[in-house]
Each structure stands twice: as C-alpha cells, then as structure tokens.
C-alpha cells in the first residue's frame, strides 16, 4: 500500500527563520493535506494542496506564513515562515488511498527557540 515519506523528521530552529518540510508519496494522489498538531491536541488542518492550483487554506492560516507547493501528483512542501516559538508543533502531511482511507507521513517535529 502507498507510503508517505516526510522530512525532516525533526528540527530545532531559531526564531525568525523559515523551514521547509517535504512530503513524498510513492503513488499519485489528487489531494494532499497539511496538518499541525500541538502537544496534547487534535490535528488542525492547515491547507489542502492540489496539483496545478494554489493551495486552499483553512481559517486562521495564510499563504504568507505557510506557503505550500505542489509541483506534481506525488510531492508537496510546506514552509513555515518567520518562525516563532508558537510555531513549535508537529506538522503532518497526508493523502487519500484509492480505498478512501487517509494515510499519513510520520510527521515533522519542529521546535523554535
């Protein structure tokens, strides 16, 4: 079954810098989703990434802060820009399998100092 590879798995960054998270799927998928999960909390959807069009952002998330690329049907990136300690979180990408179930990468744990 399809697999999502996500990197980096973790990183420690300085405030004011930016980090790009990569997500590679081993099969073509139409939609990819980016989530943020803060400690002890549920997953919050950041945006939906479709190939060939601009990402669709959820309320509270903007493109300037979380630019997303989706150059093809197997790859996407999420950038966390101008980071602050409040951006410390786990970031997860996901996609639907052909069977309709959602599958996830292992997540990227980001710590901003």
């Amino acid at each position, binding site marked *: 079954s399809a697999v999502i590879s996500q990197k980096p798995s973790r990183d420690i960054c300085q405030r004011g810098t930016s980090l790009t998270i990569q997500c590679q799927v081993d099969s073509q998928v139409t*939609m990819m989703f980016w989530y943020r999960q803060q400690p002890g909390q*549920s*997953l919050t959807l950041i945006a939906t990434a479709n190939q060939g069009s601009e990402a669709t952002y959820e309320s509270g998330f903007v493109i300037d802060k979380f630019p997303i690329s989706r150059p093809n049907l197997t790859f996407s990136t999420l950038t966390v820009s101008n980071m602050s300690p409040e951006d410390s979180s786990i970031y997860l990408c996901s996609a639907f399998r052909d069977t*309709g179930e*959602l*599958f996830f990468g292992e997540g990227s744990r980001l710590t901003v100092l």
Partner: protein
Amino acid sequence: LAKTTQPISMDSYEGQEVNITCSHNNIATNDYITWYQQFPSQGPRFIIQGYKTKVTNEVASLFIPADRKSSTLSLPRVSLSDTAVYYCLGGGGSYIPTFGRGTSLIVHP
C-alpha cells in the same frame, strides 16, 4: 462533511471490550464513517470504515445503526498497546478531512 462528537476520554482494563461511540447527526447520504487511531509521536492510522450496519476486520468492529446518526467502534479484549487517541470522521468522496478532539483511551493493567 459530518460534524462528529465523541467522549473526550475513556478508561478500561486489559482484556475488556471497549466501545467508543461517535455522534454525527448531520451525516450526508453518501458519507462514510471512518475511524483512526493515533499513538503519541505518530500520525493517525486507519482502523476501520463503514457505511451502515456492521463491519468487522482483524482489529475492530464498527456498528452503524439504520439512521446513521451515530456509530460505535468496538475493540475486543483490549491490551495496554491499545492506549491511544481514537478519531471518527464522516465524509464521502474527496472530502476535506477535519479531525475533532478524539477520544483518549487509557487501558490499565
């Protein structure tokens, strides 16, 4: 997309059957109900999916009554390794998957 409501937490003991109920009053005709399990520091993983009546796989059973306004995930004979957060989602086709608060299940020895 169906709005779902679940208990925030549940406690159980090893060997017991655990039933977690999810309410989804506004579920649409073509929505499926899907349950996910999440361990700490991992992404959620698929457990089971159903549309109506009962579905069973090697991990769990899913009961959906005729009105489909709720569903119950049943975990037979839980073990300590079943301690996790469980999420139910309702949606059909290429829906946008949003997660509620989930149910934190703690299994005690």
